[in-house]
């Protein structure tokens, strides 16, 4: 049991599909508030990211969990992380 647990935490896929996906989808949601058009009601950029969060997370999760090309998945998450962090940094510092 102990060994398999160790193996579990050593597995790259666990870190990719677990914490990394969660972090990236949260960043995606927050950054969306910046670039999503608020519309005439001025609420679309708040409501839609919130609604889409479970969906974005689910898509990223199933992709990273099932893909055979781990490297590609890794780079996708890194790219999303960088782009969304850049948007947020620009918003708060720019």
């Amino acid at each position, binding site marked *: 049991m102990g060994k398999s647990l160790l193996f579990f935490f050593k597995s790259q896929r666990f870190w990719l599909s677990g914490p990394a996906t969660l972090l990236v989808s949260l960043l995606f949601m*927050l950054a969306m508030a910046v670039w999503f058009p608020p519309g005439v009601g001025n609420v679309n950029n708040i409501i839609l990211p919130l609604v889409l*969060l*479970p969906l974005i997370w689910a898509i990223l999760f*199933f992709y990273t969990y099932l893909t055979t090309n781990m490297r590609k998945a890794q780079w996708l998450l890194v790219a999303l992380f960088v782009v969304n962090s850049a948007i947020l940094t620009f918003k708060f510092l720019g």
Partner: protein
Amino acid sequence: MDQNTSAFRSKAKALLSLHSWSGIVLGMLLYAVIFTGTVAVVADEIGEWSNSNYPQRLMLTSDVNETVKRLSAQTPKEYLDEISAYENDRQQLVYFFHTHKQNPSGDMDEYGVQYALNSQGEIVTEKTGFGSDIYAQDDTYALSRFLVSIHTELHIPSPWGLILTGILGLAMLIASVSGFMMHRHLFIDMFSIRKQRDGQSLKRDSHTVAGTWSIPFAILLAFTGSFFSFSTAFGIPAMGIVAFGGDQEALMYAMVGEQQNKSEARMASANLNLMLQDAVQRQSAAPTFLSISHIGTESASVLAFFMPNEGKVGYEQLVYDGTNGDFVEYKPIVGSVPSLGSSILSLIYPIHFGTFAGLWSKIIWISLGVAACYVTISGLQLYAHRNQKNESSWQWYSRLCVWGFFGLPLCSLASTVGFFVSGSLGTNQSVWTQLSFVISAALISVLSLSIKNIHLLKKVLLAGNGLFCLILPMLRYTTSGTGWLQALQHNMMAMMFIEMTLLFCSVWCFFALYKSMQFDQQNINQTNTSFSTQETAK
């Protein structure tokens, strides 16, 4: 080709392990959320039933305008910012005069004086405090509030409970999507449940068939549920930080769709009764609640909230100009003008709650909940059953399943008994409803650990559930004195519905008990006959 099939197989294997692990780790908590969610569909009905009440339409029969004037005169000025009014489940009209400020836990809250008036317009109770505190201590909703709170946050302090239920929603999403993806013969096996040699349905087939049919709504409910949890736990404030630079008040005004810093110049307000009459005429229904803002000023406005009506699925909010009583608009749920966000929200509410067409839609949503419960139960039992045969160290898991599946309904029923008994003794119902749940949970846990035979344990808990379902209507009658004849006379649909559901559940429990007894008897007979044939062969 070979590589393709092996990749497919490993993918199927990965999906299966995802499906089972998401179920095994979070399945029991997920069952708790789904079960109480099914109950929460009829939370309003449970509220009415637990108080033996029926809607009096007090907002239409009493003079709201005169009452608001009278109460305004005796209420501190700062609480006249906003007045909300609704009819509670004890035939009282509740007025809450309040302003908005941060509560001790740092959230924006309502603060002011709450009056409960009886049908003659006399003040029955008067409380001052934060809106969330007053609601949390209101005995009227002790039972329905307790049950709904298990569903929304499992009674874990905010925001952790909400985060946990949000994660459970995601787990349910994973389980249903992976279940859908790994089933290759989805449409072929849609109707077929194989039988075991002893005549009972194969658990695996029952699980897949129920799962297949409930996939669309399982995904929808899980998706909308995790949205509710996450957005209330951290989503909305977090978005406020990004979109409004942390100005929570500006965020609130954008969501509510109101201008900040309204004119506070004194100006007489129009007659509230006339606005109410107009709203009722437009909707041909009684409003659920009324919200009067900035009364007596230039920016006075009145909002009447209605449940969905005439084939619509969204809530309706009618806004009136408080100074002249003119109808202004149908206000969207969020923001000041109709938007994509508000129409999506107005769809998410009915899809998740099932409260868009009275009892009819609620019955269907309860059935969806029962189906989802069945999928969770049968899935976990499948796992427990498989491991029960192989390893004795997994015996505890089967026991845990029985404890959870039969224990939670029993505890909920026991908390209802606590509600009624404490009500008739005149003690604090909010406390005793919770306490009875905890006490019965402890008793059931002890029982689950002490009864060695797992089949006997199952039967004892099943009998307990049946008995409590049978007792509750009688208990309600003895504590309130409102019988079925009176209920029929006053058209108390909600109360009758809950009563009938309880009786139906009771019959079902005893029938299941009878069936399992019969099944055991058959097994004993079979082993006896095989034993005797062996004897004669000798």
